[in-house]
């Protein structure tokens, strides 16, 4: 058994105290040795998912949006339907909007599609997906997503449809 857990806890402590660079350092270090920790497959998977989720959050705090997206992707790819990851899709899409380029919009769309597949009542996911489609000039899919958001009760969706679709 190595010290992965101490590093993980140091990462959590650093994050809670707003020491995001050290949070990144400790989470990265913890994840780099998780394979040697002697955990059961299930525990290892769970630790990787939460570890990369935390790492993504810390990177987002220091505006390392590319790094945050990569971390979120690892967590989400490992367990796309995990209930507490519903908001992680939103955080990933926020990072993609911060980067605001065609590639990041396509990444946002890919993961928001997965999100709405598993969490079909998430109006914000449909709204964000609609906006991401519009950003790459795909008005048809943009409109479909915005209409779904509207159907779920989003009050801004109709304005976007009127203005951009």
């Amino acid at each position, binding site marked *: 058994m190595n*010290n992965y857990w*101490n590093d993980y806890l140091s990462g959590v402590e650093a994050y809670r105290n707003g*020491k995001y*660079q*050290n949070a990144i*350092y400790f989470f990265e270090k913890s994840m780099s*040795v998780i394979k*040697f920790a002697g955990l059961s497959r299930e525990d290892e998977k769970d630790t990787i998912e939460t570890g990369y989720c935390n790492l993504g959050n810390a990177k987002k705090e220091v505006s390392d949006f590319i790094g945050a997206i990569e971390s979120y992707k690892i967590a989400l790819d490992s367990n796309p339907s995990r209930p507490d990851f519903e908001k992680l899709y939103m955080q990933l899409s926020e990072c993609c909007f911060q980067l605001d380029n065609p590639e990041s919009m396509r990444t946002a769309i890919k993961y928001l599609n997965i999100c709405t597949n598993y969490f079909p009542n998430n109006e914000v996911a449909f709204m964000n997906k609609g906006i991401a489609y519009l950003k790459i000039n795909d008005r048809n899919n943009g409109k479909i997503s915005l209409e779904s958001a509207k159907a779920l009760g989003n009050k801004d969706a109709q304005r976007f449809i009127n203005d951009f679709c």
Partner: protein
Amino acid sequence: MPSCAQFENYIEIKIKQNIMSIDLTNPLNDGINYLKEWRNRYSKSEYLSKIVLNTFYRQYAMDYIWDSQIINSFESFSNTESQILKAYQKLEFEYSKSAENFILDNRLESLIKEGMEIGGLNYNTSLPLILQAEKGNNKVVEELEFTYLYWLLANKSILMWASFGRIGYNYLESVTKVTNAIIKMNEPFTYKNSLNIFGQLIVSNFMDTKYVPLKPLYYE
């Protein structure tokens, strides 16, 4: 960085002579030469910051490889080498690779200024010393220089300790190989407690006998 060739020489000699504890003379000399070089290259205040920065640089680079390379020397990498010098070279190489991660984008400065403890050291406790030293306090300058050398040697001792793991010795046997002391441990080896162990068992005594302070940085 001291070259591996320098370490090869004295490790080999000591092993041939069957003297069990390692000799830290070469790493100490290398450390002193670095200090002299920085004194020539930088202004006085830059020099003082440089000492502290480099102390933490080594702490982070070593801490990062603690599990993957150091502890694993007694587990996954145990008995994977037949020669202590080869093992040592590999560990130095891994340390150097780790150190590169902290050079870019002022990452090290960002890390240390957040004031997290790393291997028992905290930048927040060094900061007042830098401020005092900058006012011309030679005693504090020497304290900073001594601290740099002390942690350098403690970290070198850890690399040597792990090298013995790679040629098949267990944790405690390797401590004996490095320090000539037999110890018992009731807790796992962490980076922090290992620095303390090697600091107390070998570095302190060595510094007591071999360390000579540099000439004062500030003249009257």
